[in-house]
């Protein structure tokens, strides 16, 4: 059960990190940062 909780947290962290990184990536490539 503990591993399931870890897996759920990793999943949420992955989604959040990917969206934030993609925004950062796009901002850098568009010359905003």
């Amino acid at each position, binding site marked *: *059960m*503990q*591993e*399931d*909780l*870890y*897996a759920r947290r*990793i*999943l949420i962290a*992955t*989604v959040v*990190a*990917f*969206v934030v*990184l*993609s*925004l950062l*990536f*796009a*901002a*850098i*490539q*568009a*010359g*905003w940062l």
Partner: protein
Amino acid sequence: MRGSLRVTFWIIVYFLLLFSPFIILLIGPRPEGREFWREFSVALGFAGLSLMGLQFIPTARLPFLSDVFPMDTLYTFHHRISIVSFVLVAAHPIILFINNPFTLQLLNVFTAPGRARAGTIALLSMIILVWTSVSRREFKLKYETWRGIHIISTVLAAGLALVHIFGVNYYTAIPAQRALWIALPVLWLLMIVYVRGIRTLALLRRPYQIAEVRQERGNTWTLALTPNGHAGMRFKPGQVAWLTVQRMPISGGEHPFSFASSAERPDRIEFAIRELGDFTSTVGRLKPQECKPGQCIYVDGPYGTFDIDQHDAPGYVFVAGGIGSAPIMSMIRTLADREDRRPLLFFYGNRTWERVTFREELDALQRQLNLRVVHVLEQPHEGWEGETGFMNAKLFDRYLPKDRKERVYFVCGPLPMIGAVDKALLELQIPVSQIETERYEMA
């Protein structure tokens, strides 16, 4: 928690692998004149693909992962993260279309350039991949058919996505970027070589033959296997294996089952198989026979962390619904062979008294071990004085001893039951670290 260092290590490796594409992509020269939304959509596409590229790993049954993470957790993670990767990949064209509706023309496979066609077909393959996986039961797809579709659409989606990236050629300029997009298919190839090559050869060298097919209560069969020309298999009580029955292991017709026999008897392993689907309904027709080419059984395992040997405790509490009792029987039979005297409590849920698999054996084991079995029936017969209905906190509270927080709990059964039992145990303030669960809807 035992192995927590290894868990942390693999989580760090996972995130490093996942985010390395972004780091490598940022190294290269910045393309001129590309606006934010276009780059954002490209980044989401890359994110989705790198996620998808790693999905071969959790289900490849790599020993260094299956020794650390429960198999059903790995498979559930694979299911969920695959849906996330699909959403990310699908967001790539959707944002492009909203940002510049002119790009909708790229969907026309007759007029669009090859790179766009590759992208469209890759996305269609991903839709088929996810749809058939999420709705396999609704489509009534046979396991083997689904698996074939799964493999073909995965290869198509991944391969054509790479064709799309190299065709567009925006982020393939410097060697590090090219190396990244080449490393992904190399990783996939290595996985295929390991799963279909190395592991298949290892299985072929260790065949099993059917020693007995025994009918149990509740439309269940015990399939007993003996090793043919080798010493057998050491497993921990509660672990799982994938069986390939009377066909070549490379054919892909393998099915996961928990060991039901004692881990102290590796020379004869048993699996309890309930008639639930297309393959399981054929088990009763199997006959004991010598292992001839094409007639052998191949046992890929053992896998998983759902076992008593990795979770030492002053006593155990088992909770099973239906054929979720198979790994629990392996644990109880093993403890009986080891003459273990620790207190054991087994909450066993079934629809009716007649369907209680291993009922008579459990009666005998109660006399041999320090074991108490609490039968819980959904549809009790007239005169039944035991527990009825579904398992809940009140029921557990009546039976659990004072040292309940020190015991380790093994819960196995269908998803709704596991959810209800987990909730009930947490209500009783059983620490999460003491609860081990295994769903039997794994693959």
